[in-house]
């Protein structure tokens, strides 16, 4: 019977999730103690709870929410060329799906015939 609470031995060292959880709890406790010593000025129902959009009043609650399509815009724009190729090959056409499968099959057939044997 092995020790399930013991260290998880990895190829280059070890890992102990329980120690990690214990240390995390201590860090959370310290963070909580620091936070609890702070001054509480938050008042529900006042303008403190309204979203701040550079001084402009939000049109609606929904309007303050950043939509999924706008997240990582910079990342996607920086990799425009890469995504252009990827979007082009994702045609949604089942003929292309089969084409890729047959293409890879042909390549692997050639590779195995040349270098497949021991």
């Amino acid at each position, binding site marked *: 019977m092995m020790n399930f609470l013991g260290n998880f031995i990895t*190829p280059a060292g070890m890992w102990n999730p329980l120690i990690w959880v214990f240390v995390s709890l201590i860090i959370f406790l310290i963070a909580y103690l620091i936070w609890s010593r702070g001054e509480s000025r938050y008042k529900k129902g006042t303008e403190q709870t309204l979203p701040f959009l550079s001084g402009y009043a939000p049109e609606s609650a929904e309007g303050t929410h950043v*939509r999924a399509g706008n997240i990582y815009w910079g990342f996607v724009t920086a990799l425009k060329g890469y995504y252009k190729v990827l979007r082009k090959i994702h045609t949604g056409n089942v003929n292309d799906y089969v084409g890729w499968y047959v293409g890879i099959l042909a390549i692997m057939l050639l590779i*195995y015939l040349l270098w497949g044997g021991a």
Partner: protein
Amino acid sequence: MIWDTLMAHSPALVIIIPLLAAFGTPLIGRAGKKYMYTWILCALALTELMTIVMLYHVFTNGTAIYVMGANPYNLAIPPDSHGIPVRIILTVDAFSSFMAFTASTVALAGGIYSIACEHEQTGQEKYYALLLLMLVGMLGMVLTGDLFNFFVFLEINSLASAALVAYHVDKGVATEAGFKYAIISAIGALMFLFAIGILYGEYDALNMAMIGSRMQFTNLDKIAMALITVTMAMKAGAIPMHYWVPDGYGKAPGAISAMLVTASQASLYGLFRMSFTVFGISANHVTLGWFIIILGVLSMFVGVTMALIQHDIKRLMAYHAISQTGYMLLGVGVGLATLGTAAFNQYGLAAMEGGIFHIINHAMYKGLLFLTAGAIIYRVGTSDLNKMGGLGHTMKYTSIFFIIGALSIAGIPPFNGFASKLMIYESVYQFQPVLSIIAMIVSILTLASFVKVFHSAFMGPKIHNVKEVPRSMLIGMAILTFFIILFGLFPNIALHYLVKPAAEALASPMGYLSRVLGGGP
């Protein structure tokens, strides 16, 4: 006595229980929905129980043989068969039982989840019958020791899956996704059957162990190897043959998307089993290993970068499923590339263990994430992230389940994804550092992608006036969460009972071959 009998017959019972339950479902369904739900849940729970019994049997007694219709049940080579294993032979080693446990657990969670999620749909008896047949297909694929039976179960799995993908119809879009899946699966299965024909013509046998032991590795065998490995990689969703995955996973009901993960993993099992056991002894391990590694790296990187730009929650998760499959391919590919060398003992076996550990981890957290996506769609009525927001205000349990799944898939400790990824990073780094670095970058991008989903769906002002999903859906999610936390906090349990025996069984094809070809009970 009863326990021994149960253990001995467990490989057959694991397949027979869901098979009989599938055909009984339309009949029980006529008596009423409540009876049908009880019937389904009993069948799924019993299958899970029998899988655990089989797991224990294999763990304590080694590879199990079950020959349908033979007396005794484990007589693989009868005296009058001229040394050839005949009849339908189930060959269950630690890797097979590991895969069966993974598939039946996700199916159980999916079945419970479906009761509330699909209760307003018509044709439920067909849905549950197909769900059980899909499970039969997966279990058969991972338990059989016979190539033709593997093909039959592959077809059962594919046809049931395609029908279930189309279940919601969704103005014809889901039907189209199911149709695409059926076409690509049928063509793949045809190629697989062609390879079986080649091997049968050469070796007069369909048994994997027999073919593996007789393998001459002629040019015909190389053709068969290409047909089988490429087909299995395509069915597992490896890039660049992954195109059906976002369509199929994206349009299937939530529970079926979770089960499609394990269905793809059954094909991954096929790829690994054929690579190690059938062709492994004669083939060039380096060529075969690098084929799997390259597919793995492509799948990891292209999968995650495609996921980042999706705004349909199910399609996004489908691309992540492709990306995570890449980790499994990478880990096991490194093991195969180093097989038979000193490097295998240094880090190759550990890479395989990491890859195999990732299979069960991925099934649990990706299954959970698909269930949370299904829960969101169930309440909001759309899968478009641009139309979501603020669900965390009301769907608190779903939010917690999503956070656990998202942190786990991103490899954040202390969840299970971290444990398997750590094994892969460390072992692959010793093989080729750049591959390990790519794997780490992919994890960062995965986290970024799920931060986007969490922000879009759960954070922000309350946009939808919805409530939490019904209890049965929460129970389905809780089952998978339990394993995520268990394998995260106590990875040694999974490693000791499931992963190490599975990796060792896969890496030692001679043990598998001699167990079948030893012949006697």
